[in-house]
């Protein structure tokens, strides 16, 4: 079939799982469990409940695998099962739907993505909306500071504090490496909304990094 040395594809693992192959199941759990837990966190209020939802999702996978026809991707199917289980656990308040445009400088919680005082106002008609002072370069930050454990912890913490929909999108896209099409399908977002959420999430992480690298 495919290159034996390469990472097995989802479709191959699904076929093996249908044949009751334990290793295939193990690989799938290792591949998707962290993502399932993080996604479950956007539905329920505690990590313990999210872990329960993720575990029950796998039980749902086993129960349904013989009927899974592969019309949607495995990822999408996993998310559908997870959403159904999460709903039975008492879902948090409805997720907010983002505005359809990235053109706003404020996000859904009213926070500025860029401090407006950093941009020139209408008193400078030629350059209104341009920087009043440039963002500082990060080149001066020591390499270990930019890539070290402390920075990683800070980024993790920032992502954890993002509004749920932003957190979900940046996690799937930038940590898990999903394509935008996969994220849109799994989370039932339009391409435009997905980009808005990704934009806000990335900009917020950037802003936290800026604060951190500036004090170095």
């Amino acid at each position: 079939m495919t290159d034996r040395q390469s990472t097995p594809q989802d479709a191959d693992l699904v076929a093996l799982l249908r044949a009751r192959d334990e290793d295939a199941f193990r690989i799938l759990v290792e591949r998707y469990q962290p993502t399932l837990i993080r996604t479950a966190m956007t539905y329920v209020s505690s990590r313990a409940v999210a872990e329960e939802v993720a575990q029950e999702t796998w039980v749902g996978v086993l129960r349904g695998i013989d009927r899974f026809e592969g019309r949607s991707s495995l990822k999408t199917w996993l998310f559908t099962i997870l959403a159904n289980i999460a709903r039975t656990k008492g879902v948090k308040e409805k997720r907010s739907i983002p505005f359809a445009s990235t053109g706003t400088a404020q996000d859904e919680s009213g926070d500025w993505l860029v401090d407006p005082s950093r941009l020139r106002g209408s008193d400078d008609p030629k350059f209104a909306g341009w920087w009043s002072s440039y963002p500082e370069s990060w080149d001066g930050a020591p390499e270990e500071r930019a890539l070290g454990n402390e920075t990683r912890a800070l980024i993790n913490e920032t992502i954890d504090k993002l509004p749920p929909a932003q957190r979900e999108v940046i996690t799937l896209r930038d940590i898990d490496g999903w394509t935008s099409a996969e994220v849109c399908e799994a989370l039932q977002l339009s391409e435009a909304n997905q980009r808005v959420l990704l934009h806000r999430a990335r900009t917020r992480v950037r802003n936290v990094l800026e604060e951190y690298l500036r004090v170095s």
Partner: protein
Amino acid sequence: MFPDENDPSVDWGTLTCADFIALCTDYLEGALALDDRARFEHHITVCQGCDRWLDQIRVTVEAVGGLEEDLVPAGVLDGLIHAFRDWKASTPGALEKPAL
């Protein structure tokens, strides 16, 4: 390398820095129409602040991408493997194992 803002010969283009910041993700996602893309790229050539901003967004994406996934705790994995074995014992499943 970047023009002086008092230089009258400079074409500053049609985007403000606020526009540029708002469009970064659309640009990186390849979602800008061709003429918007050209306006965006022109702005980079005249604004050091935005050149730097876009670069920092790229660094951010890389840094986020460098985060590692948590490993599944052994206890959780064991529990799921048990569930798998129970399921396997109670359902017939496909007879033939496909070749991988």
